[in-house]
């Protein structure tokens, strides 16, 4: 418990030790620690960035998928519509054609009827004359009664 010059020697040793630590020991150790800290922070940041990239890529992929689906649906709908229109057109064309054919047939029939009626008229006149001849038992002058006969023909 006595004080002596050891005190000052210890003081000098103390400062020498601290100086050496400050010069040669502390900087590399703390430098390594800080560099590793930065490395880890960078790594974590890169990981987080990668995760964000993945998320946005997934979102983009989803978006593209959805757009493609929509487009496909649109195309299908359009083609269905087009098909329906084509069918409708075909139906209309067929109906028109059918009506045209039917009309033509009706016209033909009408014409035939007219022709038959004409022939009938002609023959009716002949028959009527022949019948009248028979009834009257005499010759009727066709020229003389032509006017009357024509009138009769018109009435048929």
């Amino acid at each position, binding site marked *: 418990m006595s004080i002596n010059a050891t005190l000052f020697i*210890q003081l000098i040793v*103390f400062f020498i030790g601290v100086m050496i630590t400050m010069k040669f*020991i502390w900087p590399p150790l703390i430098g390594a620690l800080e560099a*590793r800290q930065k490395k880890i922070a960078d790594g974590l940041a890169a990981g987080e960035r990668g995760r964000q990239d993945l998320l946005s890529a997934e979102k983009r992929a989803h978006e593209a998928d959805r757009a493609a689906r929509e487009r496909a649906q649109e195309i299908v709908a359009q083609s269905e519509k087009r098909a329906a229109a084509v069918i409708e057109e075909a139906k209309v064309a067929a109906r028109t054609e059918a009506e045209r054919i039917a009309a033509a047939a009706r016209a033909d029939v009408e014409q035939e009827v007219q022709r038959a009626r004409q022939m009938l008229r002609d023959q009716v006149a002949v028959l009527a004359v022949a019948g009248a001849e028979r009834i009257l038992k005499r010759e009727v002058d066709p020229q003389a009664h032509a006017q009357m006969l024509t009138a009769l023909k018109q009435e048929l």
Partner: protein
Amino acid sequence: MADAHVYAPNATEYIVHHLAHWQTSKQQSIVDFSVINIDTVLFSVLCLGLTLWLLYAAAKRATSGIPTKFQAAIEILVELVEDQSRSIVHGNRAFIAPLALTVFVWIVMMNAIDLLPVDLLPKIAALFGWYAAGADAHDVYLRPLPTADLNGTLGMSLGVLLLMLYYGVKIKGVGGFIHELFCAPFGAHPLLWPANFLLNLIEYLAKMVSLGMRLFGNMYAGELLFFLIALMGGYVALNTTGVLLAFAQVIAGTAWLMFHILIVLLQAFIFMMLTLVYIGQAHESH
């Protein structure tokens, strides 16, 4: 050496012998600056050398990649010191953080000498003394624990005091430092100047003395207890009391050794923390 000198001290002589320093000359008064404790200086320097070698070995191979287990262990210390110094000292820590690291590891090393058997190093010294100079074992003194020497601990706390003054002047300027000496804590009234100055003087002295005394007291008490425990083994004999004493020494020695591991680390940590706190206070203005 048994035939050369049979040395059988009684209990008091044993302890007094263990508490005597290896000195350049026998100290007569309480304060005598012509005397140097060679053992304290020797073991302080050895411990410092070991500390610096250990830390330098880690620093030399320090890498920011995957650290070795040794590097990781040293890095734990560095990080502890860095965190503590950052939270306590607000300012440039290029000197202060290495200071704290050195103080902590160095004091742990010095305190750890206390964990060696109390008679080991003195006996080795006695052997050396006898072979080298033919000295009688009774005249060879060695107290290997530098932190149980008040000179050792006060030397370090004196260093801390000088640093407190240095940083006080550096941060506040000479004018600011002197202003604070006279105007804090009571106030700037001229009548209060003597009281302020006196209080500041006492505060600085108390900080330095308590810092050194705390470490010294703990280690001195621990050392003394080890002497007393070792003393029990000195009375071992082939009778009931003697055998019981041997057991007592083993049990008490083990218990105190385990407890002392805590004190070794704790006191080193406290010294480091107080060093930081005192230097941190020098950075703050009142």
